[in-house]
């Protein structure tokens, strides 16, 4: 059996360089929570099916429970903590709050990361497109309706601005 050697990992997390040591078998999700103190990374299922642990990894969304921490060496990571601009919430966070798109909030970080990527792609958003985009994320509380409304509201506000 190969021993549990500590591995040093250095990554940019929400714009800040973080260096930590971990075991090879530690998931990136666990390392982010324990070693980097970003506890907005939630762990629901720990095997890739719920989406709560979704982060942005080198520019695209990824499930941090499906990566081992050493894979993050040199990577650029954004978590839900990186969405707000100081005290100013991201428009999606505002909209989730306004539209009651969360109850317990456990799933919310994952939904926000996926929705943020969808909006950044800039394509036209219909209810169907939004539902497809969030279909990999599980919410046990809201019934999804208000999550879809919140995302569409941000998309509508954006296209309204573009027309001005």
């Amino acid at each position, binding site marked *: 059996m190969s021993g549990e050697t500590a591995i040093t990992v250095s990554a940019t997390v929400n714009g800040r360089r973080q260096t930590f040591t971990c075991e090879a078998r530690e998931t990136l999700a666990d390392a982010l929570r324990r070693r980097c103190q970003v506890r907005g990374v939630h762990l629901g299922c720990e095997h890739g099916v719920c989406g709560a642990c979704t982060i942005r990894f080198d520019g695209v969304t*990824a499930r941090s429970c499906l990566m081992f921490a*050493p*894979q993050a060496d040199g990577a650029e990571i954004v978590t839900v903590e990186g969405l707000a601009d100081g005290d100013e919430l991201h428009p999606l966070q505002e909209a989730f709050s306004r539209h009651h798109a969360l109850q317990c909030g456990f799933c919310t970080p994952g939904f926000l990361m996926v929705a943020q990527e969808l909006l950044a792609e800039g394509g036209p958003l219909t209810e169907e497109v939004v539902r497809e985009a969030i*279909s990999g994320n599980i919410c046990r509380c809201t019934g999804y309706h208000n999550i879809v409304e919140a995302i569409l509201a941000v998309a509508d506000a954006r296209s309204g601005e573009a027309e001005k």
Partner: protein
Amino acid sequence: MKAAAFRYHRATSLDDALAVMADDDEEVRALAGGQSLVPLMAMRLSRPEVLVDLNGVDALAGVALDGGHLRIGAMTRQRDVERSPLVAEHLPLLRTAIGHIGHVTIRHRGTIGGSVAHADPAAELPAAVVALGAEMVLASTGGTRVVPAEEFFDSYLVTAVEPGELLVEVRFPLGAVPARHGMAEFTRRAGDFAVAGAIVLADVAADLTVRRARVVPMAVDPAPRRSARAEELLVGRALDDGVIREVAAAVAAGCGPVDDIHGSAAYRRDLVAEMTRRALARLRQGAGE
């Protein structure tokens, strides 16, 4: 849910990866997108002693047109294959098939080689590479060899890849198989693995006469394989509703589904007939999917 301990090796080149894969004292596994392997390790269904991370081996990723082939590196992300203009032009079936895999976030990391090497009989890519007559390029420290897709898949999660070998490329011969495709699959929830599905390729004349056909049912056999009987029934006949029904029945009769938590064997047999019917109807409309 935590993986057992292992030694992590981030490969810097194909040669570096192959050198570590060649170690036959320890159980060594390749780590591609991790979208199947990491859950298996978390559940301790897989406990490799050494993990060779291929994510840094740039030479294994990319789509290229090369003479009569479209070559796709094993580490090419499913999302990049789905969005490749070369794939859209030459292999539209691949794009349709990948659209059924999980969700965008899964496809960002999941690779074509990982899905093919994993060989889940319910997965889209193994069935698609059989339908498309692809060739698997395998490498080891001893050299490379090429295995046709139809000889690559043995049974549930078992392939022709030998210990010490890596799948480095999936090579698609162009023009060797019919151009039009139709695909249909049934899932309980969006993005799940298919309970049953079907992929069909055919050349169809203006009067709907089928010239060539390839039919691959999904999730109803231990490994993806063509339905020879269904193909015989199609060739030389006009693709009308009666023929479609006959072919669907032949696929159902010729497959060997099993009972599992997602459905009984009998249910899967009914479902694969209906999916074959839909796939052929889509092909006839020229809709693909």
